[in-house]
């Protein structure tokens, strides 16, 4: 078993799997059970200012997207920050931290955008001896209407300002949680760094409407005939989150800024992927809400088995390992030529590759009388669609050797060459 102990901005935890700030971390009862189940850390459900807590709707707050067998692929919520009194939360945080000193306990915060509000709450959080704070600049519904959450997260200047206040008024490590509801994630990340953030975490949920009730003609979840957009999370958002994490990891201005990866982490593999793209650890919400706290046990065993296989002794050896390989399209090797190849022994003859290629792509798969499917190299552009639709994963992409002739283009496979120097590229030609 590989050692999964992880240290993130100086905060130690027995493994890099934390629970994200959300219902699973909304109270002592939950968090104690989460720690018992093995979670390395938690980010407590977002706290608001002193005073009467926010209220939630009293009708349904979730909507979902399903895959086969009603497997939950995407979850949408219109829940707000904690609706329990601040004092209760703070008391519970203190008690849990005292009993679990080896686990990471971060407190998520969202208060109005003025220095005093932040100053006031920081003092009280420090008193709990929590390991750090996370600034929730992400919540896309409800709180944003009140000038908080993503309303702050979408304005880099505000992010920088609030982060600076937090660093000024507290000695605690500070993570800034980013909203994905923005066109370029690098802006908010740079602002967080400029404000002195120790790390960023991302993504919070994505603005979404999951479905429409076709009898009542209202978005779901429907509250008394009306619905509102909510925040989307779960396996479906992972690709969006991975890209945003990678963008920050490879941006010259933010390179090296610690990242806590969030969004659709469901298995050890998802976690490892985030880490390879630069996340120092990961946070999980939907997977726990779907399957319960026990899912972390698979994440732990899976990651540790993977690390053993790779010979990694510390998670830091994995973190960022894929970042150098994330590049721009223009630098991709146009002389890397592959052809799809069907492993006939494994093919079950469903014909989906054929339908996909014939109807929607390049007519590069032949179907014989007896349902043998073969790739026509002279037509195959190696788009990978057949690979993606094959239900038994029996199509491989085989690289053509340098010096061989691509039967589709008649051109010889040469050395690395990219778009920047391609004859069809007007800028390349102009440069000559």
């Amino acid at each position: 078993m590989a050692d999964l102990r992880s240290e993130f901005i100086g905060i130690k935890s027995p493994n890099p799997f934390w629970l994200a700030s959300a219902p699973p971390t909304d109270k002592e009862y939950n968090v104690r059970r989460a720690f018992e189940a093995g979670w390395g850390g938690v980010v407590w459900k977002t706290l608001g200012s002193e005073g009467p807590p926010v209220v939630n709707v009293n009708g349904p707050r979730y909507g979902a997207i399903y895959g086969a067998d009603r497997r939950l692929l995407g979850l949408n919520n219109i829940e707000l920050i904690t609706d329990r009194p601040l004092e209760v939360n703070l008391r519970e945080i203190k008690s849990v931290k005292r009993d679990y000193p080896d686990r990471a306990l971060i407190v998520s915060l969202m208060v109005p955008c003025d220095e005093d509000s932040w100053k006031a709450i920081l003092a009280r959080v420090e008193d709990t001896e929590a390991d750090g704070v996370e600034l929730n600049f992400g919540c896309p519904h409800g709180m944003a209407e009140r000038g908080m959450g993503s309303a702050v997260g979408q304005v880099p200047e505000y992010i920088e300002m609030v982060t600076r206040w937090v660093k000024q008024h507290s000695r605690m490590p500070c993570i800034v949680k980013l909203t994905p509801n923005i066109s370029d994630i690098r802006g908010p990340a740079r602002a967080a760094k400029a404000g002195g953030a120790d790390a960023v975490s991302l993504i919070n949920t994505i603005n979404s409407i999951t479905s429409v009730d076709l009898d009542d003609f209202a978005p779901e979840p429907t509250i008394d005939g009306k619905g509102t957009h909510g925040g989307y999370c779960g396996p479906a958002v992972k690709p969006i989150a991975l890209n945003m994490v990678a963008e920050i990891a490879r941006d010259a201005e933010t390179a090296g800024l610690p990242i806590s990866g969030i969004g659709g982490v469901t298995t050890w593999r998802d976690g490892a992927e985030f880490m390879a793209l630069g996340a120092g650890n990961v946070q999980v919400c939907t997977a726990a809400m779907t399957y319960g706290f026990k899912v972390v046990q698979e994440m732990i065993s899976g990651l540790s088995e993977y690390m053993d296989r790779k010979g990694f002794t510390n998670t830091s050896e994995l973190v960022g390992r894929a970042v150098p390989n994330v590049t721009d399209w223009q630098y991709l090797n146009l002389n890397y030529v592959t052809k799809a190849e069907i492993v006939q022994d494994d093919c079950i003859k469903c014909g989906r590759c054929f339908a996909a290629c014939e109807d929607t792509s390049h007519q590069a798969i032949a179907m014989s009388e007896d349902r043998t499917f073969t790739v026509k190299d002279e037509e195959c552009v190696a788009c990978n669609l057949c690979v993606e639709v094959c239900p038994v994963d029996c199509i491989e992409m085989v690289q053509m050797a340098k010096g061989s002739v691509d039967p589709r283009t008649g051109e010889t496979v040469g050395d690395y060459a990219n778009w920047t120097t391609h004859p069809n590229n007007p800028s390349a030609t102009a440069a000559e």
Partner: protein
Amino acid sequence: MSHSQLTEGIVPGRLDTEGYCKNFTDVAPPLGVQEARIAADRCYFCHDAPCMEACPTSIDVPLFIRQISTGTPEAAARTIFEQNILGGMCARVCPTETLCEGACVRMDSEGEPVEIGALQRFATDTLMAKQDHPFSRAPSTGKSVAVVGAGPAGLAAAHRLAMLGHEVTIYDAHAKPGGLNEYGIASYKAPGGFAQAEVAWLLQIGSITVVENWQLGRKGDGDLADLLGDHDAVFLGMGLSGVNALRLEGEDKSGIRPATEFIAELRQASDLASLPVGRDVVVIGGGMTAVDAAVQSKLLGALNVSLVYRRARAEMPASLHEQEHALTHGVSIIENAAPVAIHGNGAVREVEFAYTRSGPDGLEMTDATFRLPADQVFKAIGQTLGDTPAKVEVAGGKIKVDGAGRTTAPRVWAGGDCTHAGEDLTVTAVAQGRDAAQDIHHVLMEG
């Protein structure tokens, strides 16, 4: 009547009421909504799907399963019924393991096909429960067609003809329509009076008159010339009403009868406890009829049931699935043995068999023999064509038809078990009835 399984002879009431109930309920209970959804999710929506190819009625299986998975089982049922108006019965009786499910690509990947038959039943049951008939008739063509036989072939032909706007009269020798759906299919495959319910639902299309207790060629009923005089075309879907004999001495002893007769009686019994069955039952044959007779004897309380087939098990016409069904119900299957003598004094006591082997001229008897105790013997060695009109050519014991179902007699079509193209399957009979109807329509409208 206080009989038990041990009582000798052919007696009723071997089981208690509960026993009969348990033994004759639905052999494959219907899928619930949740089960159907999970089962439907397994379909890959194959291109030019092999299952569809393997279905004799070419039901668009991937489409109907997708319709189920998107929560529209009624649309799924319509997809099924467009190709196979007896899709409800077929879902219950098709040997899917050798048809659609046998061809399912999931067999290749994991040896477990998509449950096409059960899903077909889910969809068709949903629509039929609403008493909703999804088709309507085309404007009347003024043509009329006689259909002989109200079995699957005749019903499918009649429905298609009615849909196309023709006036149809179905003539059947039995008191109830349905053919073997009503008188042959094992009772646990379509319990609850499904055969009659299905016929009633099918007839909702309208313009179909059913004449019962009318036998073609019987004095007082009518012959082919009469039908051709009254109608523009005739479709023969008469099935096989005769049975093959063992041709053994002692075959007339009491206790020996055709399996089909026993099954028909069982299907019509209002109280299974009143139906007598032997303690030691021997079934001779290797097809679906033999299996059904053997299993149902066992379910009625027979103590020992042996099914004896003259060739190897692998060659049995009954599918592997059916053989297993028999074995799990406690039927012993004896292969490579043929009956040579029937012993007993008035009533059968024992059947003597000789082991067989295959020789240069086919099957040969060996000298090795054995006897099985028997108080009841069912013959299930094949059915035969009943009397057919002289003008209709018969070859190899079946009515000769071309690809479109045309017989050698003008204006006369045929389909189902009575033709050489029949495969002794409900679904094939449906396909042939439907296709002949299309051809009849074509000819009538052209002429």
